[in-house]
Structures are given as C-alpha cells and as structure tokens.
C-alpha cells in the first residue's frame, strides 16, 4: 500500500471513529493496531507496547500529576478565593473594573496552575455572581471567566508545554520562559479589550455602589495578605525552574508542598482535602495518559510507515514561503482544536510538524508557544470548547451553552491576534535570553 493511501486510511479512519463517538484514547489505539497488523504483521504490536512503556518512564511526565495536584489543592482550599477577594476591592469606580480585576486574579491563578478546568469552575462560582450582581453585560462576564480561566495553561507552568516538550524533545524550562511574555500579552489584551469596551459603553460594566466601595484602606491592605501565599508559591515554583535550582518535576512537587503549607496556615489542611485532590489528579492523569498512549501508538506506526517523510515532501513541494507553511500548520491546528483534545493534537501532529519547522530554520521553542496559543483558542471554540462546558456546569440555570459560546467570539479573535503577533514578531518569545539556561 502506498503512503498516500496509508495516510488517508489512518487519518480518515480516525476521524470516522471519533465522529461515531469512540473514545479518543481507543480510536487512535485501534487505528494504530489495525495499521500495524495489516502493514507489518503481529510482531509489530510489540512496537506499540514498547512506545507506551518508554513514554510512561519519562521523568518529566511525573511533573504532570504534581501540577494537577497543586491546582486541585489550590481550588479546594480557600487560597484562590482570598486572592480574588484581595483583587476585588481595588476595582474602584472604573467601569469594567471588576472584570479587569478578575482577569488579574485569573492571571495569578494561571501562574499557580498548569491546567484548565478548575480555574474556570472556581471563577464561575466566585467572580461570575459578583459581576452579574453589579449588572455587568452577561457576554462580557462570561468571556472574562472563560478566557481568563483558560490562562492556566498559557501562563507558566503549563502541562500543555510539558507534553509538547516531551514530544519534541525541547527543555521544559525554556518553554516556560518563552511562554511567559506571550501569556502576559494575551492577558493584557483581554484587559485592554474589557477596558475599551467599558469606556465606550460604561453600562457594560457598572462599578460597585459607592457605599460598597468605601472600604477603608487599612482593610484593603489587610486583604492583600491573601495575595502573599499564592505569590510565594508562584515565586518558589517558577523561580526554581527559571534559576535551574531544581528539575521541573521537583519544582512542581515543591509547589505541592508550598500549597499544602498555605492550606495548613489557613487551618484547612485535612486528609480529606488531600485525598479528594489526589483522586481528581488520578482521574485527570488517567484520562490524559491513556489518551497519550493511544496517540503515541498511532504516531509510532505512522512513523514506521514513512508518514513524516511523506508529509515533509508534500509541504516542501508546495513551494511557498516558510511563513505560509507555518500559517497552514496554524490553520490545521485551529481546525483540529475544534474537534479534538489538546493532548491528542500534540502527540499526533507535533512529531510531523516540528521536524519541518526545524528544517525551515525556525525555533521549536517558538513553535511550542504558537501551539500553546492555538490550544487557547481550542478551549473556547465551538462546538466542543471545554471552557464553555466547565462554566456551564456552575453557571446560573438560565445561562445556556449557546449563550456562552456566543459570548466567546471576541476573545477568540483576541487570541488569534496575539497568535499572529507572536508568529510575525518572534522577539516576543526570545526577549528573555539566557534565563532558561
């Protein structure tokens, strides 16, 4: 069978199985098994098992449950709520102030967590009711929460970057360093958008009544104490990684320790809290890892069949400028982001895309940032944008999925604009030279 047909059969079969509702982990695995059996015979199944074993044995991968555990503990303790409350009192009389402060809190939370989901749920529970109570435009409030909550994987640490780094063999520390600026640009773009919209039409984000705003400065400063613990955890995790004191995995484990200390200072540390957080970690990692197993099997078989060389040939035969190649890849990623989970996309496409990127003379770290930005879009894009589903789970009953998705378009547009900015101005990524060494 020619590689053209193998490509069509494998990817076509995958899309078909996915559309029929077969779990992603098993669709990729089944196609891998079927292709291996028909192309290389029964013995080649060992290749699939071997690939899974070697994937499981990666030390960097241990950081994933650590980051997830840290986030789960953070969400279950009152640390995050304190953080939001500390920010909230500074909103003042500025139209849209509360939404901007929510975005600041979301960005700080993003620096504490490397996953999405919990943060959106949390903001949906604490920030959304506040904004709705003040009479905020519902769409603006929804967008703030979904886009802000998704920053978890954009502001380092980020398990998206961990998996990317593992897949294409790039140091995770470099990826974290590179992603910091684009993450802040994205969050800044959201804030600017909220600010401009509320300046043009203050009715979109009314400030709190004057009586409520009259919080004495002393009290405000005391609330700022709520920031101390999260900031300490952030600095200890990111600091150790950037300064190269400890490996990413150790830094993540120390982050868990820091979060546990923060919880115990708040007198919240109980075995039940830890156990529930660990259970959720188990569920999240189980899902993620088995997805990865299937996808890594798929790529392994496709590699053996000569797939990457074929795609490489097709792309170079297009005879277009390198930037266009990158743009095409971005288009493919954006499309896949609408129908697939980021882990699947990363493991299926990156082993093919990144060698091409390197041969075009681009930096794989920069491409990792682009991938991460792409996945930001995938969280919000209909029909499966997970951010919308997370929010729906905790939103008021009358808030439908359609309303949520309709509110996300401006934020998706902002994400694409930042994506293009990073694509056209790579300096946004490389401005922190040497820090990752």
């Amino acid at each position: 069978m020619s590689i053209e047909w193998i490509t069509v059969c494998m990817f076509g079969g995958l899309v078909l199985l996915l559309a029929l509702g077969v779990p992603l982990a098993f669709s990729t695995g089944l196609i891998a098994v079927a292709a291996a059996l028909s192309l290389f015979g029964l013995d080649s199944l060992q290749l699939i098992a071997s690939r899974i074993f070697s994937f499981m044995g990666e030390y960097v991968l241990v950081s994933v449950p650590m980051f997830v555990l840290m986030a789960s503990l953070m969400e279950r303790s009152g640390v995050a709520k304190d953080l939001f409350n500390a920010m909230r009192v500074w909103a003042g009389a500025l139209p849209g102030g509360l939404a901007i402060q929510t975005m600041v809190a979301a960005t700080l939370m993003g620096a504490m967590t490397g996953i999405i989901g919990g943060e959106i749920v949390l903001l949906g529970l604490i920030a959304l009711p506040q904004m709705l109570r003040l009479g905020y435009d519902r769409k603006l409030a929804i967008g703030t929460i979904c886009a802000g909550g998704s920053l978890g994987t954009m502001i380092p640490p980020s398990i998206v970057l961990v998996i990317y780094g593992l897949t294409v063999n790039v140091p995770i520390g470099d990826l974290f360093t590179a992603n910091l600026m684009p993450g802040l640009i994205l969050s800044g773009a959201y804030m600017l958008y909220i600010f401009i919209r509320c300046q043009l039409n203050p009715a979109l984000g009314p400030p709190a009544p004057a009586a409520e705003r009259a919080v004495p400065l002393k009290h405000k400063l005391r609330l700022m104490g709520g920031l101390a613990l999260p900031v300490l955890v952030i600095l200890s995790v990111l600091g150790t990684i950037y300064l190269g004191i400890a490996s990413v995995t150790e830094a993540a484990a120390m982050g868990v320790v820091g979060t546990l200390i923060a919880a115990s200072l708040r007198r919240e540390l109980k075995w039940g809290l830890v156990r529930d957080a660990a259970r959720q970690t188990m569920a999240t990692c189980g899902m993620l890892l088995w997805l990865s197993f299937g996808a890594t099997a798929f790529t392994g078989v496709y590699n053996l069949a000569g797939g990457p060389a074929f795609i490489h040939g097709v792309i170079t035969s297009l005879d277009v400028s390198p930037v266009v190649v990158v743009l095409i890849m971005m288009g493919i990623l954006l499309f896949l982001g609408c129908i697939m989970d980021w882990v699947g996309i990363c493991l299926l496409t990156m082993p093919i895309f990144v060698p091409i990127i390197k041969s075009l003379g681009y930096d794989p770290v920069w491409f990792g940032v682009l991938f991460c930005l792409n996945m930001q879009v995938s969280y919000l894009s209909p029909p499966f944008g997970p951010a919308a589903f997370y929010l729906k789970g905790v939103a008021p009953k009358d808030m439908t999925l359609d309303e949520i998705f309709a509110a996300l378009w401006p934020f998706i547009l902002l994400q694409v604009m930042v994506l293009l900015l990073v694509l056209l101005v790579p300096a946004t990524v490389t401005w922190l030279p040497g820090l990752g060494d």
Partner: protein
Amino acid sequence: MSLGGAGPGRGTRVLGEFASILFVVIVAISAYEVIMRYAFQSPTIWVHEISVALAAIAFALGGPYVHATRQHIAITFFLDRMQERSRRALRVFQTLVSLIFLGFLAYAAGEQAIASVADGETSGTALNLPIPALLKSVFALCVVLLAWQTLRHLINDIRAARWRT
C-alpha cells in the same frame, strides 16, 4: 468485586485511595531529595527512579479508574442528536471497537510483561531493581482490567439495546 459497574464501585474507590497515597509519596520523596541536596549536600540515588515508577503505576491504574465511570473523552455531538435506538446500537459498536483494541494491546503488553519477568529485567541503574518488570506487569494487568470492564459495558449495552427496542 465490581470494577466494571456503571457507577464508581468499591474497586474504583480502592484504586482512588491507593493513588492518593502514591501521589503524596511522590511529593514527600521529591521534597526529601531537594532538602537533602541543598541543605545536606547529599543527593539521593533513588528518588528520581522511584518517583518515575510510582507515577507510572498511578498512570496505568488511572485508565481503569477513569473507565469505571466512563469518563474517557469522546465526541458525543452526533450521538446526542440520534434516535434512542440507533444510539444504543452505536454504543454497542463503540464498546466493541474499544474491546478489539484492548484485546490486541493486552496481548502485546502481556507478552512483554511475561518476557520481562522471565528475564528478571532490572533498571540497570545504581538501584538496579526489577522496576521494568514490575511496571510492565502492572500495565498489562491494567489493560486486561480495562478489557474486562469494557466487556461488561458491552454486555450491559447489548442488554439495554435488546430490552428497550
């Protein structure tokens, strides 16, 4: 023992409980390593390898844990828009397809596990423990467990499809 039930059964809870201990142990020994390295200048030789092994066990067990509650990510967009009858038929198809994959994977993983245990495969590091043999066995067992759960889902789905048509 009911690991394949539709809801989180006792076996699933036990798995969850076990995993919490694994994760907490990883945190504890990693913290121990960092402290030993910086406060006492005597890094350990075992933390790195043991954390990888513990995490791998947790990852493997995570499959059956997630599967017990049918939480694996799937696209239900079209499924949700179907008639009840075709939906049930499609469910049978999904489970069957998953079972085929798991069957082959169980064969491959099982063969590797048996070979690894028979050879007494060790990690070949300073510790040189039979960790690879252990991990391969645990993984193979988890695949078998997944296949067993899926088979139970299949039987339930076929029953559901027959009873209500």
